């Protein structure tokens, strides 16, 4: 019996394990090897340079610039869609008419490609006829000459604009997670509060929000992973510019490796990115683990 089961375990796992090992796991470790070379993308035999790439990274102001931008991106791209999704879920939970249509509208952007989302928002921030400038002009009775802000071409506003576009796309996902969390709150709890005449805002603050902690943990985890991976929308909307003002590690790594063909240096950036991911993931799961101990 046991050998028969072992045969099937082996037979069924052989294909998925080998594909995963060859095309995901092995390349992860291979990155470390390339990070110790000066490979330019064309040579057959990359030269071993030891830790030279890492010494250069920690003296490269562009690296620290993209590190800071990554931190800003993660903080904002995590907070805005999570808070927005929670707000939408709480509004929708009061069972208004047409809740299903509202949900679909808020959720629609998630199925659009980042390439398309980027294009849409480039048009919103377009200086001549973009929606944002048009709205500001009509609100302040200004002419196009008086107000002509090029949102994506300004180092001060470029990153914030991409964060806004990203949040627009991601909020619906968090809304769905919070809505799922809301349905798991026992209705007896809210009914008991209603009988005691507890005002609505107190119910939300002291009953609903604490009960949403597991859903919040999920929303935060998903947003965090999504934020770390973001590449497409930044590439489309700003390409990291102007003057590297919206460069994140993912983008910086791509530009160094596939634009400048410094693949050895690019590998060392991806190793740093890998280590940052490990730290964040471990820290997060330790935190959530504690949460589970308290609430179970």
């Amino acid at each position, binding site marked *: 019996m046991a050998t028969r*089961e072992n045969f*099937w*375990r082996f037979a*069924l796992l052989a*294909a*998925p394990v080998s*594909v*995963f090992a*060859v*095309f*995901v796991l*092995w*390349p*992860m470790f*291979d*990155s470390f090897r*390339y990070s110790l070379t000066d490979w330019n993308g064309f040579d057959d035999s990359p030269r071993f340079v030891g830790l030279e790439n890492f010494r250069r990274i920690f003296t490269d102001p562009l690296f620290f610039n993209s590190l800071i931008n990554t931190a800003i991106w993660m903080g904002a791209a995590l907070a805005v869609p999570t808070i927005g999704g929670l707000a939408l879920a709480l*509004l929708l939970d*009061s069972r*208004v*008419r047409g809740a299903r249509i*509202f949900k*679909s*509208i*808020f959720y*629609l*952007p998630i*199925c*659009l*490609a*980042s*390439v398309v989302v980027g*294009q*849409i*928002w480039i*048009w*919103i921030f377009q200086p*001549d*006829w973009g*929606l944002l400038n*048009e709205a500001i002009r009509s609100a302040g009775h200004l002419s196009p000459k008086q107000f002509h802000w090029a949102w994506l071409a300004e180092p001060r506003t470029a990153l914030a604009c991409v964060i806004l576009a990203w949040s*627009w796309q991601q909020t619906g*996902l968090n809304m769905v*997670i919070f809505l799922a969390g809301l349905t798991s709150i026992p209705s007896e709890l809210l009914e008991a509060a*209603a009988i005691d005449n507890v005002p*609505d805002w107190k119910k939300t603050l002291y009953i609903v929000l604490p009960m949403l902690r597991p859903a919040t943990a*999920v929303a935060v*985890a998903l947003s965090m*992973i999504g934020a770390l991976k973001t*590449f497409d929308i930044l*590439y489309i909307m700003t390409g990291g510019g102007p003057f590297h003002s919206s460069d994140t*590690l993912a983008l910086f790594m*791509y530009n160094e*490796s596939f634009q400048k063909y410094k*693949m050895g240096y*690019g590998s060392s950036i*991806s190793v740093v990115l*890998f280590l940052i*991911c490990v730290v964040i*993931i471990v820290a997060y799961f330790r935190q959530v683990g504690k949460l589970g101990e308290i609430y179970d």
Partner: protein
Amino acid sequence: MTDASQRAAPSGSPLRRAAIFVALVVLAGLFLAPTVGVIFSAFKTTRDISLGELWSIPSRLFLGNFAVVLEKPEIYVYLRNTFIVAISASLLSITLGSLAGYVFAKLPFFGSELLFLLFVSGLFFPPQIVLIPLFKMFNGMGLIDTLWALIIVHTAMGIPICTLLMRNFLISVPDALRESALVEGVSEWRILLFVVLPISLPALAVLATLQFTWIWNDFLWPLIMVQSDEKRTVMLGLVFLRGQYSVAWGIQGALALLASLPTLLVFLFFQRYFISGMTMGAVKG
């Protein structure tokens, strides 16, 4: 508790409900504006758009943009490439993920939890980490600039989510089903095909919608792996053609709409699967 009082319980006073409804209408309008803008643009002339007419309802349906777009032969090549990659990589990753998920759920062994965690950890890391090694590997295999590279990459990258969802789904299926078949002498392979596969159809539908949408929309991998025009996917082609029509806004809008049509249709018809897939792995895991 009567049905009426349960429904009324979380809603509060009529005034409050009206205020919430108005707030939702305003927010929905703001959320829709960007998408609607692109749809409008596809039906307007570039001249109208640059005069600031993009954000109003078109007074007439201008179809010239679509005429230009549909006359370009490369559009059909991009669409065909993307369909080939998205459909075959979705099928392959779902098949491989189901096999692994089945073993993790129904045939656990010493160390299988650890192997499962290793699979799932693939979800957490940005693709940048494997970009260079995979580029080098495919270069050595002579697969750069072929659709094979994209099919293989998307299959491999899809294994973690497919394994996670299938394992979580199959764990909720009672063991008795499999065991009674085993007692009757049915082989594992036939159980998988004739018992497990039919009851897994909802989960497979969820994965199919998710994987198809993600692979269709992907931009990074084609950007790395594809060089020639006849191997471009829709999203890569969209960015390339945008350079060609840099101020022809209407044509860009028509292109974006055409490129989004398949995933928008998937969303319209399979929205339920899409949403449950997004929350299922997360909430149950």
